[in-house]
């Protein structure tokens, strides 16, 4: 078990994947010229891809095709000093191919708010940096 400077257990890629698969909402961070932005998004895993539902008219959708992104998912309970977080860092690509879009539309990716997701981006988990931390979950084998 590796512990970081904050006393948190360090999770490798293998241990992070089931945690990524266990949630449906994450936060995406992108750096715009005007500064940083962080927004909650719906996501789902599809093979080796992390697929994020976006609004094609939104600023985020445009930036995600060009800028490096950070994607974070967590479940933290400060009262019980319990929690985990997973961070994915890399680049996303817009899903443009009709077959890929059709596949994304079948994922359990429900839009928050009115309407459905009309666009998707994908992050290839095989090439992205995937790292995690956890606390108070010793004894749960994530492999």
């Amino acid at each position, binding site marked *: 078990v590796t512990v970081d400077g904050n006393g948190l257990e360090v999770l490798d890629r293998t241990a992070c994947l089931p945690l990524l698969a266990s949630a449906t909402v994450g936060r995406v961070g992108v750096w715009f010229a005007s500064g940083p932005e962080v927004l909650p998004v719906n996501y789902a895993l599809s093979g080796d891809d992390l697929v994020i539902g976006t609004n094609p*008219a939104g600023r985020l959708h445009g930036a995600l095709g060009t800028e490096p992104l950070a994607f974070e998912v967590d479940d933290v309970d400060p009262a019980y000093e319990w929690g985990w977080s997973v961070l994915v860092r890399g680049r996303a690509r817009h899903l443009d191919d009709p077959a890929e879009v059709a596949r994304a539309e079948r994922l359990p990716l429900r839009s928050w708010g009115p309407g459905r997701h009309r666009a998707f981006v994908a992050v290839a988990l095989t090439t992205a940096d995937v790292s995690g931390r956890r606390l108070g979950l010793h004894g749960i084998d994530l492999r």
Partner: protein
Amino acid sequence: MRTIDDRTGLQELDETTCLLLLGRHTTGRLAVVHDGRPLIFPVTYRRSGRTLVFRSDEGTKLDAVTHGSPVAFEVDELDNRTHQGWSVVVTGTAEEVTEPAELDAVRKLRLEPWAPGVKPHFVRITPETITGRRIVDS
């Protein structure tokens, strides 16, 4: 206040509502740039007036924010079953609190980080923008 964003169809929240929601929660996600790439991590925070304060050890978090660097901070409450909820996003700058009177004040915020470690440093986020959205299933 009920302003609907034409683009997203979500109800926009005014700043007062956002500040009230920020005061009700203690866990948020901080986005900073480190080595030219964005980084996000969960932090335990408290709202103090119109600012947000969190504790930090030496390391990535503090390195990334010591010089009034731009940051984004997000807090939300999203119910996966009903698909209702809200999210508040603050953008602004972060700086370590070093002035003695200010340090006394932030020490009284009952700011207990979720992670162990000493975390002797207090960092304050001063917002430039505070925006929020309420999600109501239509």
